[in-house]
């Protein structure tokens, strides 16, 4: 299945200057699996949205999902 992931500059998910990237995942994969595939350090990850809904790292993804991963924040 394919999901679309939105880039965030601080997480440097995509090296090229794209705003989104599509990745292929095995059916039944969750957010943690996706982060592993992207080689993204989970400790840097804060809020995750799947199709604009707040989600957890163990949420199962489905084909066509749009995922936004935000970095951990400290306020500002």
């Amino acid at each position, binding site marked *: 299945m394919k999901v679309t992931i939105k880039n*965030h500059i601080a997480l440097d998910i995509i090296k090229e200057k794209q705003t989104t990237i599509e990745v292929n995942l095995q059916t039944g994969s969750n957010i943690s699996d996706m982060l592993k595939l992207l080689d993204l350090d989970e400790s840097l990850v804060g809020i995750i949205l799947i199709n604009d809904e707040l989600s957890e790292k163990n949420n199962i993804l489905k084909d066509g999902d749009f995922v936004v991963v*935000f970095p951990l*924040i400290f*306020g*500002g």
Partner: protein
Amino acid sequence: MARIYRINMDKLLIEEDKIPEKYRLLGGRGLSSQIIMDEVDPKVYPLNPLNKLIIAPGLLTGSGAPSSGRLSIGSKSPLTGGIKESNSGGTASTNLARLGIKALIIEGKSNDDKRYILHISEDNIELLPDDETWGLGNYDTVKELKKRFGEKSSIISIGTAGENQFRSATIAITDVDGRPSRHCGRGGLGAVMGSKGLKAIVINSSIKKQPLLDIKDKQGFREVTKTWAKHLTETRKMLTKYGTAITMNTIDGIGGLPTRNFSKGKFEHVEKINSTALAEKLTKNGGKSGHTCSPGCVIRCSNVYLDENKDHVTSGFEFETLCLLGSNCEISDIDSIARFDYMCDDYGIDTMEVGCAIGVAMEAGILEFGDSAGVEKLLTEIGNGTTLGRILGQGALITGQVFNVERIPVVKGQGLPSYDPRVLKGTGVTYATSPMGADHTAGNLIPGRGGVEFNKPEGQIKASRDIQVYSVVQDIMGLCNFTGSAPETIDIVAKLLSLALGEIISPSDVYNMGKRIIEVERDFNRKAGMTENDDRLPHFFKTEKISSTGGVFDVLDKDLDNTFKDKWSSDL
């Protein structure tokens, strides 16, 4: 020995005070709030000579603890009518601490409208007549004072807003580049300084003298600070690289980004003012990220923003400014917001208070949302003190009252920060109940903090109470908020104090230091006339659903009233 100086502006007299035992383990906000409680009548008019301005480095400032160079300034606030502490980075705190100065107490008011500069050097402290800088903005003031006292001077100053005693007036502090870009921004403290006839404080210090805290076990202390500095450097890398703007996308993503005078929680042009946009500008124009806001900061989240010609536009360009003068006014041109930031720094006005006030003015139809030229004109009016400028310069509440706007985002008269309380409910509890008025640095329950779900009402009272205590402890110690308003910081502070004093200070002792200062501040506010009704968010947050999530602020009033009546964690 650490010293406290009392500067009497009536008599032009400076005296060294003995430090009472009860002030020994206080610094920063702890010391400023305690001195105000001890010496200022809570009923006094804030711009009366009987009000006092207290300037205090943190207890750990200058000790070698990482990111501990904040300077607290406290007074009775002309904006909130209650006790106030606002703290800032810059170079002044470290220099005061190195001179062994635990606090400056500015009292009285100069006679015959004469204006003064307080000059502090290694062997002298004196009040000098100010014949050159009154009427100048902070940038020109600093330029003139450096000519007079030397390039390396550390300068605390007010701009024209402070001279005009506006409730949004800040006190500026020079940064590591010598620019007046760091500000004790909140609560109108610049107006108090202006009311006393004090334009600036110049500090010249090159050598280390007595640290504020005599450290008994120097090696043990160094080991703890070294490990902590390493931890902070490693875990705050994203703040170092992208600054506080990194917060923008998350808060917009969860629908809590104040937009169009707090009527919406998402900004359609957020991509033009977020950390990506900022990083691109800094890279393209040769600006700087990873800039320290105070000596010894390992987080280095500040920046220097240049224009296309590589000329300086502003420094210390932060998330709060990008939101409140950006999305909240529906302005998406980052260069314009950077220019606003400079203008606010120069006139000495709080970007947050004025961002809220201009949002309200836009709703009133004084100018259109998104009109950046209009905002620049209004900021100029504030700086020049025109009639409209005088109204806006008094902040969001007075602006809203003058123009009959219902949606005025303030608590205790102070404009709300960039986290909508209908989405970030624990932060909303802090806004409502903090003795400081709406203040995110008083205890910000952003996602992931406090063991609660940020957008649910459950558990927020205890979470807010605890994080308010952790935040006060940071403010007492002079620690940056980004060292972590969390139990881990309390543990480290307990270790550091134990090593410094050679006596056991437990985390519970440290928690109680913070708790006691909140109680002192609440007591002052009660005596000033505040009641439970002042511990409330504006009514519209309860009744108007935010379009992003459909949420309202649904923490009950009776629960808010228990925030500091329930058992504190140290009692459990």
